[in-house]
């Protein structure tokens, strides 16, 4: 099932939650909507599910207008952040719910429903919890039951709203891998919302980065990490060093002092220089176009993370870099720095 969203606008009073959003999702994709809270990602998901209605725009499934159908007719599996399991029903009845409320003409008989529920509980590896109530389960178990319940209706699309948001870090990691392998098993077109970049990059085939109701970039995890399209994406995904620079005559200046880097076609004027923490080359003092004194060093695993106060320029600019441990840094020493890879975006705001 393909999903196409066109020019979607959604306002809550004076607040614009979605501002002309366009999105195409291919058959069998596992797509992540990534963004900070308030970026409109959950609203977009709810509009696709039919739980919210756009003020303008189109939503179509396989080319067919979805907005003429309510949520109950769209055959969309929805998994809520806080699970939303029916608290007065056993796990078994929760999963069976979607099958029991079908119109009589297409409803399965009791034996078939039981077999299907059993099959789904096996799939999420929780068949031993059939007769428990949701309040007796752990967070991770509840989320897996919620997923089994959504899959019971054989949804054409699976939508997950911050599926692991309420879980602790370890369970979250396990469920992430599990969701990935589940998706490769059942191959249903899936969209999940997250504010956790690691989750998005690790699980999804494609990532949609959103901010303030707009889509900033759509791409594979590698693309959005290595080639961020905007300053927002660069700052939001991965950890970056951001320096205010001046672009002019093909030359980039920091605090009036030219840096030994090319402007890469950036427009003249105020700009921001983005460098990944691990893309800063370090050497002895005077070896690079930047110079700084090491204030603090922490080492863990294969890297050392150093806090460096840049010399020159106005005020004290402190940056954090990640360097390999082949050359141990000492607090107090002065080193030279040169960006290996970097991007320049025009400063807006």
């Amino acid at each position, binding site marked *: 099932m393909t999903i196409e969203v066109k020019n979607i606008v959604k306002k809550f009073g004076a607040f614009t939650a979605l501002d002309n959003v366009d999105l195409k999702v291919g058959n069998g994709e596992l797509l992540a909507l990534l963004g900070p809270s308030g970026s409109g990602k959950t609203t977009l998901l709810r509009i696709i599910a039919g739980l919210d209605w756009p003020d303008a725009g189109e939503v179509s499934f396989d080319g067919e207008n979805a907005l003429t159908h309510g*949520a*109950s007719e769209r055959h969309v*599996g929805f998994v809520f952040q806080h699970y939303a399991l029916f608290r007065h029903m056993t796990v078994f009845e929760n999963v069976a719910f979607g099958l029991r*409320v*079908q119109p009589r003409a297409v409803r399965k008989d009791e034996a078939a429903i039981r077999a299907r529920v059993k099959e789904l509980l096996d799939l999420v590896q929780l068949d031993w919890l059939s007769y428990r109530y949701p309040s007796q389960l752990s967070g991770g178990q509840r989320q897996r039951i919620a997923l089994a319940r959504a899959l019971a209706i054989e949804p054409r699309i699976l939508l997950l709203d911050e599926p692991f948001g309420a879980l602790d870090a370890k369970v979250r990691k396990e469920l992430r891998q599990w969701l990935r392998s589940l998706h490769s098993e059942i191959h249903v077109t899936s969209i999940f919302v997250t504010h956790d970049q690691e989750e998005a990059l690790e699980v999804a085939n494609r990532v949609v980065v959103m901010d303030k109701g707009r889509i900033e970039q759509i791409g594979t995890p590698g693309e959005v990490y290595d080639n961020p399209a905007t300053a927002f994406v660069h700052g939001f995904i991965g950890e970056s060093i951001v320096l205010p620079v001046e672009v002019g005559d093909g030359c980039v200046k920091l605090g009036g002092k030219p840096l030994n880097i090319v402007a890469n076609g950036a427009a003249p004027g105020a700009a921001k220089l983005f460098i990944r923490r691990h893309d800063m080359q370090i050497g002895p003092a005077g070896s690079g176009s930047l110079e700084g004194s090491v204030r603090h060093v922490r080492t863990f695993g294969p890297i050392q993370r150093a806090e460096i106060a840049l010399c020159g320029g106005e005020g004290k600019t402190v940056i954090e870099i990640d360097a390999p441990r082949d050359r141990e840094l000492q607090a107090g020493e002065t080193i030279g720095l040169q960006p290996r890879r970097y991007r320049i975006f025009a400063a807006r705001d």
Partner: protein
Amino acid sequence: MSQPQAWSVPRDNVHTEPGLIRFVIVAIAVLFLTVFVVLPLVVVFAQAFSKGVGAYFSALSDPEALSAIRLTLLVAAISVGLNLVFGVAAAWAIAKFEFTGKTFLITLIDLPFSVSPVISGLVFVLLFGAQGFWGPWLQAHNIHVLFAVPGIVLATIFVTFPFVARSLIPLMQEQGTQEEEAAISLGASGLQTFFRVTLPNIKWGLLYGVLLCNARAMGEFGAVSVVSGHIRGETNTMPLLVEILYNEYQFVSSFAIASLLAMLALITLVVKTVLERRLDEGQIPRDD
């Protein structure tokens, strides 16, 4: 004075005073409850049985008494039934949807609590009385509202309206709309969602509201008194009959009927306690 002695005086007080204060406070509470609650209850039953069990039961089987009991049960059944529907609808609308005028609606629901029951009755007299707003039309069509069962039912509905809605609104607000959204996304229709998801989640709160509503409906005096017309054997409810019999010095009959209302109160109290416990158990701790 040395330090330890200075300490010893207040310490003695710490041991003696609270004991005394505790005793006094408990004694006051017990005395108060005895005088204002237990004693009146005992008096009701003592008076009812003062001429023996035979007199008690013959007072209850008097045609007027039977008619009053029948009328009270009928009025309670209709008004509780309708308020159940109204209350659930109002609570549903307020707790699960956002709309303009919501605060106004909540205030309106509370109105019967803040208006004197006599006024509530008078409102219906003004609307349905012979000189009232709809009076001439009703008379022309020979429809009797005032001084008849419909008037009593209307007044009772008005007075007891807040109970069901009030007991449901906080419960439904706390539960939110996620389970309903889940049900709808699983293909359930609106009715299926209500009967399979919403109703089971609020059943104890609903029973609690219905219980309080029923107790008030059966015991209502002021509003009903204004619209009933006190026609013996026809429009007298139990509380009205208690007053009439008392004014006629028929103490045994009066207190016999009063004892039924007192018994209703006791049963209500017990069931209410049980329901409150169920409601507390129903609260599931959230894990975030």
